């Protein structure tokens, strides 16, 4: 099970007319076979098992019973679940545009050719992607410390009292900061790569028309990388819904602010591993997965419809 990976747009692969179709058909399976088998084992089987689990309830006293859709009804009435969903939605609506906005700005700046030391910028801004979430969160956790972390140092150096990044009001933003830090470089690179393949003929045409830099950006560059924008957005949306690593590792520093139901993923994790409530956890996770898929699909449809 790999960490967040972006899905694809549903652009259909070109169907190659082939007279030898039937002979090809099983060879194709030969090549994709290994992937498919492992996939069935590692994804499909657990999903099926998860559905099965969600229809039962296993109690500490009393054992396992079939309960049909009870777990699902319970989930729909569960305040904790809905408030965690609200929280990641809020997170998404704020953090994703900020992160993608910064990434886009940097990509455009790199592409404009007007930076000193472009390659240095590109590589360095990308580096945080190579840092594991555990390390990133531990680092930022240390730095957020108001007594002895960087925040504390700034406080004593400048005689100010910065608000505590780990206080209840700010902790979500602090987590957002960590996620932004981790992924801005990655998204920047996706945008930059997309910008680099824009045909130069377009720019030549724009020069002839006398378009300024800004016009070039809005009329040529942005539309051209629409696909990359959509992909990055979908990926970030899914990542936001699945937020787990950062709150989980930061939690010992802010136990009251980061509750066990802080994000849907953390809630299902707590249900399973604190309370041994595997069945209910499976039901909540399935609901969460469906919601994520629907939203990702909607974003993709809307994104691609406006495109070429």
């Amino acid at each position, binding site marked *: *099970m*790999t*960490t967040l990976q*972006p899905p694809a747009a*549903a652009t259909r*692969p070109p169907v190659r007319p082939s007279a030898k179709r039937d002979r*090809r*058909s099983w*060879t194709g*399976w*030969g*090549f994709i076979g290994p*992937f498919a088998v*492992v*996939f069935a084992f*590692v*994804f499909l089987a*657990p*999903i099926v098992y*998860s559905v099965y689990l969600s229809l039962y309830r296993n109690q500490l006293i009393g054992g396992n019973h079939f309960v049909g859709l009870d777990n699902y009804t319970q989930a729909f009435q569960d305040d904790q679940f809905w408030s965690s969903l609200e929280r990641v939605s809020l997170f998404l609506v704020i953090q994703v545009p900020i992160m993608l906005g*910064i990434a886009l*700005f940097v990509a455009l700046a*790199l592409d404009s*050719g*007007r930076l000193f030391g472009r390659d240095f*910028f590109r*590589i360095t801004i990308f*580096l*945080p*992607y*190579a*840092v*594991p*979430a555990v*390390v990133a969160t*531990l*680092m930022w956790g240390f*730095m957020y410390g108001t007594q002895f972390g960087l925040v504390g140092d700034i406080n004593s150096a400048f005689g100010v009292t910065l608000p505590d990044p780990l206080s209840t009001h700010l902790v979500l933003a602090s987590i957002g900061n960590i996620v932004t830090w981790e992924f801005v470089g990655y998204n920047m*690179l996706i945008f930059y790569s*997309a910008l680099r*393949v824009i*045909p*130069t*003929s*377009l720019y030549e045409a724009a020069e002839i028309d006398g378009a300024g830099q800004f016009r070039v950006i809005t*009329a040529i560059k942005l*539309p*051209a990388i629409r696909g990359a924008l*959509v992909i990055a957005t979908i990926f970030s949306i899914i990542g936001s*819904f699945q937020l787990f690593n950062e709150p989980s590792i930061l939690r010992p520093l802010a136990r009251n602010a980061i509750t066990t139901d802080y994000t*849907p*993923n953390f809630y299902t994790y707590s249900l*399973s*591993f604190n309370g041994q409530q*595997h069945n209910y956890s*499976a039901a909540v*996770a399935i609901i969460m*997965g469906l919601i*994520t898929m629907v939203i990702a699909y909607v974003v993709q449809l809307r994104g691609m419809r406006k495109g*070429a």
Partner: protein
Amino acid sequence: MSTPVTTASASAPAPSGGGSRSAPRLRTPRKKHTPGRPRRSVLLTVLTGLILVYTVVPLIWLVISATKTQSGLADSNGLWFAHRFALWSNIHDTFTYHDGIFGRWLLNTLLYVVLGAGGATFLAILGGYALAKFDFPGKRAIFAVVIGAVAVPGTALAVPTFLMFSKIGLTDTPWAVIIPSLISPFGLYLMWVFATEAIPVELLEAARMDGAGEIRTFFQVSLPLLAPGVVTVLLFTTVATWNNYFLPLIMLRDPNWYPLTLGLSAWSSQAQTIGGDVIFNLVITGSLLTIVPLIAAFLLLQKYWQSGLAAGSVKE
């Protein structure tokens, strides 16, 4: 730099506007956007520089903190050195603490990466190739299912996978970490896109007409053309496997099999328990040591993955 992207790809969605008479070409670094040299903008550089500072400050903090002893951490300012420069002794202590378990964790991580990411890349290459160059029943379904699976939260799968694996006796073994790592939907997608672009169908037809079997065709004709894509997928699956935390967290109990991420997290929480050794300086040094190999890999292999990623973006 000859990348497969320069081959004709009539199916690429043409950007709107101007004529696209010339095939999309990966631009070599040029200095001109506008006639004459563009002004290097100091303002732009400064603004981007702010973002660079944001990116780099935590890393600088990490490097500086790794040079401090446990008490040095307490006494000194976060962004400057303490009295004692202890980087080498920290590194030494990191590798010798608890009978050198850090070294073992490093080896474990390498094992998971080589087998997991290597295996994932291999499966993705084969699968992407199949999706790009063959037509077979169920093809669209496979792709939809795989991509749909990405949206499933990791925790939905974690416990059922754990229960499944424990019935077959796989938990607490390296296989419990390696096998799930073998699936990379992003890798599959990237290889599919890349293979579509990079391997002209004419070459394949030619090879088949010469009587080469599919497997030979694959290894001798297709694979070399896929090189940048392969490196890209390898790098990204390596990052994912190297940084994997949640999966090993639930699958492994024996610390001898931990990857670095899990080990660091264990050291960190050890300091937070009754009677635990306080070793924040080792956590920090260990963190630094954990990220150095990946960063080095990215720096050294830049050329490949940049073009691979570019190709992946073309398909949009």
